[in-house]
């Protein structure tokens, strides 16, 4: 304990220097801005800013880049709630209930609860890193291919509860997502699958492209079709801040979301992403599910807390093992190497001022974000009063710029437009896009880990049950499946008996 206080005091000493406070602020401000702009993510921004960091001190550079990353998680929820446009994979879930809240004139409370939940989650996760980073890294290492596969199965089974309409449609959308995820180079053989000879498809379709299409473009087409009906949800605005009732019902959701996010965030490879899906699933299972999908504030609070907690704890593998858990972390490694720091286990012991300085800066950054974001809510909500004929072309433009910035390819923009048309068809068929996104992300990861586990076991499929963690995860998945299916089975039986 004494150690921890000593370490934290080193950390705050570094993070509270005027210079580092400034870089922290620049980072979170930039992060919020790019998070709000649809399509332009932290990845493209950090890539563009890499050369700038050459001239900074290593710790200032890292503080700023980290600020951009978690700042973007805050900002990402804004467009999800206001215009149904997830800028990040992790805010797909926020769209479901957040956008419904906005339609009911409750954009203010939704944004506020997202900011407050994120702040709470970020603060807790930061303490979590400070206390348990090294042992947690060991937990992350316990996850091999078999464990990942079983975790993904559990995630996919959980996805079926995401649908608030027909179960069959949810399963169909998940399967379609899996199929789309198959496009690209097969990891094992190196052969390009379903790429139709197009080199642009050889690495698969980017998540942002699909999300911008089925959410962004499709939403705009649908809105334009409905004419002026949008005015309604602006006129109904009741208040900017959440009511006491809102706070009460979301506080436990925030707690649960934080716990899930902190745990799953440490897993390199999709952990942070799964956390928002898992948090939403849990909320729907606990308590009254009837309001989910219709503007339930818990459906915003839980996933937003989870993704922010996950964003913080995903620094653990990077800082303790030098292993990046997502492409943004890989860029951070690049930034560290430019500065001549080899990211790895020694960073903590050889450069404690950097490790603890960064942790302290995360807490300060989260505080800055909540102070920055709460007053902005009024402004964001006002944005909804901008006539749609002006708003939608700007959204379209930003989407195109964002999609183009992914890999500087016009092909990607056209692909996003194509997914927009597909998304419009989904709206007409009343199919939810969220299960599709989950299938799209989890599908390739599942296949990869399944085949890797089988390669390692030399073709013995029992490993999935004999490895303890994997076995437990699969057991939970089967139980969840039975619980979900049981009522459906009972109903069919009743129908059968009636006849």
């Amino acid at each position, binding site marked *: 304990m004494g150690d921890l206080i000593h370490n934290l005091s080193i950390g705050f000493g570094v993070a509270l220097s005027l210079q580092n406070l400034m870089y922290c602020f620049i980072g979170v401000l930039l992060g919020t801005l790019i998070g709000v702009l649809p399509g332009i993510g932290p990845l493209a921004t950090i890539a563009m800013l890499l050369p700038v960091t050459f001239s900074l001190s290593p710790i200032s550079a890292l503080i700023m880049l980290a600020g951009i990353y978690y700042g973007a998680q805050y900002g990402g929820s804004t467009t999800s709630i206001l215009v149904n446009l997830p800028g990040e994979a992790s805010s797909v879930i926020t769209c479901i209930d957040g956008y419904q809240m906005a339609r009911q004139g409750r954009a203010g409370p939704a944004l506020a609860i997202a900011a407050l939940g994120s702040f709470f989650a970020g603060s807790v996760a930061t303490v979590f890193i400070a206390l348990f980073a090294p042992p947690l890294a060991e937990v992350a290492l316990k996850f*091999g291919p078999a464990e990942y596969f079983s975790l993904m199965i559990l995630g996919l089974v959980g996805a079926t509860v995401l649908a608030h309409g027909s179960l069959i449609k949810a399963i169909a959308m998940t399967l379609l997502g899996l199929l789309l995820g198959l496009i690209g180079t097969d990891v094992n053989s190196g052969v390009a699958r379903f790429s139709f000879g197009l*080199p642009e498809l050889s690495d698969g379709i980017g998540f942002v492209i699909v999300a911008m299409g089925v959410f962004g473009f499709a939403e705009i087409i649908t809105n334009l079709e409905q004419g002026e009906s949008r005015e309604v949800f602006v006129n109904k605005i009741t208040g900017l801040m959440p009511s006491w009732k809102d706070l009460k019902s979301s506080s436990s959701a925030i707690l649960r979301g934080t716990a899930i996010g902190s745990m799953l965030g440490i897993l390199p490879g999709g952990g942070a992403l799964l956390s928002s899906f898992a948090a939403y699933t849990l909320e729907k299972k606990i308590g009254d599910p009837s309001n989910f999908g219709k503007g339930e504030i818990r459906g915003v609070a839980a996933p937003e807390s989870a993704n922010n907690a996950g964003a913080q704890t995903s620094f653990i593998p990077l800082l303790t093992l030098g292993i990046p858990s997502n492409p943004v972390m*890989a860029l951070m490694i690049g930034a560290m*190497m430019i500065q001549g720091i080899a990211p790895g*286990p*020694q960073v903590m012991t050889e450069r404690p001022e950097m490790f603890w300085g960064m942790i302290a800066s995360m807490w300060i950054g989260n505080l800055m974000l909540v102070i920055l974001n709460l007053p902005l809510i009024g402004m964001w909500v006002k944005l909804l009063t901008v006539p749609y004929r002006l708003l939608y072309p700007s959204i379209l433009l930003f989407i195109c710029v964002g999609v183009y910035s992914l890999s500087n390819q016009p092909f990607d923009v056209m692909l996003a437009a194509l997914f927009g048309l597909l998304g419009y068809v989904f709206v007409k068929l009343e199919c939810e896009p969220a299960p599709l996104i989950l299938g799209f992300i989890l599908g390739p990861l599942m296949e990869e880990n399944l085949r890797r586990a089988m390669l390692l076991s030399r073709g013995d499929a029992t490993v999935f049950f004999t490895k303890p963690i994997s076995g437990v995860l699969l057991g939970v998945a089967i139980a969840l499946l039975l619980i979900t299916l049981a009522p459906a089975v009972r109903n069919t039986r009743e129908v059968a008996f009636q006849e």
Partner: protein
Amino acid sequence: MKRLIGLTLALFLAPASVLCGGNAVAQGYPSKAIRFVVPYPPGGSVDIAARAVAQKLTEAWGQPVVVDNRAGAGGNIGADLVAKSPADGYTLLMGAVATHAINPTLYAKIPYDPVKDFTPVALVVQVPNILVVNPAIPAKSVKELIELARSNPGTLNFGSGSTGSTGHLAGELFNTMAGVKMVHIPYKGAAPAMADLLSGQVQLMFDNLANALPNVRAGRLRALAVTTLARSPAVPELPTIAESGLPGFDLTTWFGIMVPAGTPPGIVAGLNAEIVRALDTKDMRERLEKMGAVPPANNTPERFAAFIRVEAAKYAKVVKESGAKVE
């Protein structure tokens, strides 16, 4: 955003160069922004080196050298883009062992010709891979590893960042030369492969020196040897695979700058001189040495071209003998 502006600027100015182009080149070159295509995503070692060189060239010329990441298809997309760009010296490629030595024989068809479509300018760096094992493996040397692989055939796994990476082909070369059979486990990138090596899911890896070294120093991995013919100045105590029982074993990750074929020789020579000067600055050398990179000696376009030919022939043989070819 800066990059976008640079790009639009470059596109806008492109026709102008066609008009006033001609042969009176080296003089007044460069007169506008140069596009420097990196066929990999930002943040990797190729990208870092490219950005560092770009910064030096920008300072030297007073013209922006804009890094343009065109990742995809193992580097083939970016390389193809440059192959089909005008040969005026305003489009550079950071070519690599993958795009110019491995992919041409690994893949049944690639969209460009690695020899005919490019003029090599200068080698930028060579980085050795190192053979690292999980400490749970009893082998303390390359000899003991070969013994272990022979006495327990089919039990050892080696991870790599992708099919066709130097890490993969190093393992295949090791298998062929030592007459053993270790199983290749491909990953999507070196990072997840490293995670599974640390946890012991896979037993060994031929990883990039800079990536693996921190975990070696922390005792989480055991380094057995470097893959190059000569020892690495970064870890002089580490033997080479060649001197530990597999004579002739030589494998290195390299990248260097190329331009489209047909670029006037005057421009190529000018570019080479400036790049060599940039690589020779003190801070640049330090930066590259930290990546475990070996600065190339006698760095002329001709030597670089000859080097690429030797490399391509070497990997053609490894790919053929190991059956790693992708149809």
